[in-house]
Each structure stands twice: as C-alpha cells, then as structure tokens.
C-alpha cells in the first residue's frame, strides 16, 4: 500500500512539476529540489500560482489547488516571457 501511495504521490508530483515548469517558469535546475517540496523556489512558485489563479495562498498542494491544476487550460504561460 505504501509503495502504491508513493507511486501515486510521484505521478502527482510529476504533474505539479510539469505544470509549474510550463506555466510558472520553474526552471529545470530546480528539478532536483522538487522532491522536497519545502525548497523555497518550489513553494514560491506554488504560492505564485495560487495567488494568480485566485486560490488560497498556502504554498501547499492542497486539494483545491490540485483540482484547478487538473482542469483544461490555455497553453500560454501565466508568467514570464
């Protein structure tokens, strides 16, 4: 069960990482920190996303944040060039 949860956690983190890379300018070099969600770069990106999308800014991947991230959207980034 733990393994399964870890795999699910992994795929979710993959989705979040891709989302932040695609739309919030998370750069690849911060990728290695991504597994530790407390790296301030990643938390900062999550907070930025939550603020932009009108969510409660917690820096955490709560269910409402994940729910919005799963919704179809425009492919143009929300920040940066």
């Amino acid at each position, binding site marked *: 069960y733990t393994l399964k949860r870890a795999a699910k956690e992994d795929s979710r983190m993959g989705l979040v990482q891709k989302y932040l890379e695609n739309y919030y300018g998370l750069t690849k070099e911060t990728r290695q920190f991504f597994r530790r969600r407390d790296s301030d770069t990643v938390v900062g990106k999550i907070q930025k996303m939550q603020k932009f999308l009108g969510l409660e800014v917690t820096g955490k991947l709560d269910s409402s944040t994940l729910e919005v991230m799963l919704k*179809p959207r425009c492919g143009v980034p929300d920040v940066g060039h």
Partner: protein
Amino acid sequence: FRTFPGMPKWRKTQLTYRIVNYTPDLPKEAVDSAIERALKVWEEVTPLTFSRVYEGEADIMVSFAVGEHGDFFSFDGPGESLAHAYPPGPGIYGDVHFDDDEKWTEDASGTNLFLVAAHELGHSLGLFHSANTEALMYPVYNSFTDLTRFHLAQDDVDGIQSLYGPPPASSDDTPVPTESVPPPPPPPETPAMCDPTLSFDAVSTLRGEVLFFKDRYFWRRTHWNIKPEFHLISAFWPSLPSNLDAAYEDHSKDTVFIFKGNRFWAVRGNEVQAGYPRSIHILGFPPTIRKIDAAVSDKEKKKTYFFVEDKYWRFDENSQAMELGFPRLIAEDFPGVEPKVDAALQAFGFFYFFSGSSQFEFDPNARMVTHILKSNSWLHC
C-alpha cells in the same frame, strides 16, 4: 488584466486572418463561424477590424495540430493544454494553434471552439493572462460559461483598450456627452408566454413536438409535459441566429429547415447539418425575394408552402422544385387568412396561420377559416 512583457501590440488596426486547416470534429462552416464570432468579440470593443484571407501569410494564422507541431511548444494530448497563441508580431507571432487531441464542439458537450478561440485571439492581440476569474483571459477553461450570454468581462475590455483604445464612434452615432457614459442597454426582455399580444417569429413541428420561436427563445410543446418548456435557441443550436423568419419540418427527411434573411439551415434533432446555411434562392425564389415570412409543409401531399407578404409559393418535395404558376395571392387560395403571415403550422388536418397575436385555423378541404384564436392558445394560457 496584463499585457505581454514589452507590451507588444499591432501597429495597424486592419488585421488579416487565415484558417490554415480544420479539425475533423466539426463542419468547416462551424469552424469558420466560431473564429468569425470570436474575432467579433474583440472587434466590438476596439478600432480593430479583421478580414479573412485564404492563402499566403496573414497576421493571424489559425491552425489545428497535435503533439509536436514545429514551435517547440508541443501539445499534450486530450485535456490539460487546449491551445496556445503568440503575441502580436511577424511570422509565428499572432498565430493561434488548437490542440486537435481535444474534442472541439459548437456547444458545451466538449471543448467549445468559440470560447477557446476568443481567449487565444486575446493573446494574438497582445493580452496576457488575467488573474480575474471572471475574465475571458483567465487561463483555466470554464466549461460552465453560459455560451448564450457570453460577453467580455470589464477586465478584458480594460485590457484590450489599454492597447488599442475604444472603438471609433461610428458616423451615425450622435455624439454622446463624454461626462456621462450611456447606461448599458437593458438586457432583452424575455417574452411572456401568456401575453395576449404575443406573436411568433416562426413555428414548426419537430418529431411530434411543436416549437414556437420568438426572439432568442423558443417554447417547446411536448407530449409528456402540459407546461411548455422555454429555452434559448442557442442552448440547442448555438450556430443558429435569433429572430428567425420561418421554420418547417420535412417529416420524410426528419429535418427541420430554419430560415432567416436570405439563408436557411437544416437541423436534425439538435445537430445543424453540414453544408448549411444555404441561400434561399437555390429553392427557386426570384432574386427579388430577400426573406420569407413563414413556411409549412403538408406531409401527406409532400408540398411545402412559403409565404412572403401577400403571396405564397409552393415547393414540390418530391421533385425538389418550386412549382410553376407561383407566386399566387394568399387571399385567393386561403380566403380569410390575413397577410402578413408570421408563421404557419399543419396539425389535425388543419393549417394554422399566425399573424400577430391572432391565429387562423384553416380547413383546406372546406377552403375556409374555421376558427380565429389567440396565437399563444397552444401554450395552455
């Protein structure tokens, strides 16, 4: 709202667009219409105008693609990223790409092409994403947007006008005093079903039901519900116009033909058939006829009657041709029916002609009006 970094914008107001290819999900006409309506959304609040080109380079090139499609921004299969677009500029800039792994639809059953196109074209004109959840330029697709009442949020209007300003006052506009902004036009009233003065734009049967069209709406008389249902036309047929002129059902084709101006559409259930709208003149009307007032099809005789002012034509559904010897005067062959006819219906062996708030029940065998009723008598008022 936000603009792109560096605030790129078009340095001209007359822009060109080209639809480079099509999605297999929709008829070409539906794609053309969606893009046209999406452009009109922005045209109405800016000095910008859009003209379509069919070859070569246009400012805004619209295309459908899947996966990697040559711009390093691969699409990602169904869901997630639906489309993307580039800010104003040469070459790929200004272009709009739709992910053809989405299911593009005219209504809300899939991903509504008009809604996504209006958003992407906002990018093509220089708007970045907005953090206003009510705005069209909010990045997340809102599948619950009421397509029938779509309008730009003030945030969108403020954003695009920060780049291009408001639309020029048109020549026939009386100068409005700048200090007072005219109040927005009141939302169109919804017609009252039991208003004794109620008149209809068009009436038609549809698979045993009867539809009464008025403005942007229609009442639907069904077998299972004594109370007629009331709907927006666009809730069932998003690409149909409002304020229709006429409608009739060809039972042998299980198709309702809908008329407005010099065009007509064919709908089967709630599917608008490909290849429509078409010109009414292909039916055999002379070029002088710009619109028809009413239509009804006699399912036994397979003849369809078209009413225009005080005359009518008869169309033979078997030979698919207008019959010779027409038009004829309505008063001659339907004595007692007063022009102009707004709508017409065949039921229980009678013809029902709607003219303003009156309805004439006409017995075609006795060749006489047998009853004069209120137009809305069918709605159980």
